[in-house]
């Protein structure tokens, strides 16, 4: 148990530090790299919580595909430097105060109401295994799965249509 606690403390330190690094780094590429580190540590948390399929999907989909897309767009636009202060001066202090309030509220809720759930004695056999996840996905949740595929298709078409602006603008001008 103590090794698990030590592992949790180390990993959560890395996760929070990388999130803060993303928040405060001036360079957008560094922010993306910090976020990849954060996603990797959260994937390890998923492994600890006996969700190996979700952990691997996190690494491939989030840390792999989505963040590569982010880095690609950052380098495509050449918008790495982000060091401008907002035009309204009171936004940053107000945001920090609101963030502290949100943290206090959620900590209150966690430690007074929902945090006292009893620990399970043991997980069921095969819990979180890709076989069980696949069976549930293709029997009980097959309709949301198909809707998700339509959503991804719409997202793909939307991205293509939105970035084709120049060609369509030429047609409009002529």
């Amino acid at each position: 148990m103590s090794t698990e606690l030590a592992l949790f403390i180390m990993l959560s330190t890395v996760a929070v530090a990388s999130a803060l690094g993303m928040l405060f780094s001036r360079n957008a590429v560094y922010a993306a790299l910090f976020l990849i580190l954060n996603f990797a540590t959260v994937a390890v948390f998923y492994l600890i919580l006996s969700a190996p399929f979700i952990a691997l999907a996190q690494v491939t989909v989030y840390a792999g595909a989505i963040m590569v897309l982010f880095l690609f767009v950052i380098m495509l636009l050449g918008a790495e430097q982000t060091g401008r202060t907002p035009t309204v001066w009171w936004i940053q202090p107000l945001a920090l105060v609101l963030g502290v309030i949100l943290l206090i509220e959620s900590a209150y809720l966690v430690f007074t109401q929902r945090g006292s759930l009893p620990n399970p004695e043991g997980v069921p056999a095969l819990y979180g295994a890709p076989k069980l996840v696949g069976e549930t996905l293709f029997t009980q949740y097959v309709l949301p799965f198909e809707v998700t595929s339509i959503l991804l298709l719409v997202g793909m078409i939307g991205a293509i249509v939105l970035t084709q602006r120049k060609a369509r603008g030429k047609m409009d001008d002529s």
Partner: protein
Amino acid sequence: MLPVSYYIGLSAVLFTIGAVGVLIRRNAIVIFMSIELMLNAANLAFVSYARVHGAISGQIFVFFVMAVAAAEVAVGLALIVTIFNTKQSIDVDQMNALKG
């Protein structure tokens, strides 16, 4: 397993950092990354409660959240590229016109 409040507390901290990031950063791409951080914190809460209840449905829902996040990022980054082509900037303070 550690008490679930540890994981939920970490999830709350990550969500708060993401929310503060949305509020204080002016770069649209970094704002998008903060939204991804918040989605990730919500996923962590889902997986920890699914582990406590021994229910697989929480992990299935995390899978759907990842798919929706992927679609959202594709469309959102296309929007950012379009805005950059129009205004030569992705500073959200300069996006103050309804008509591009």
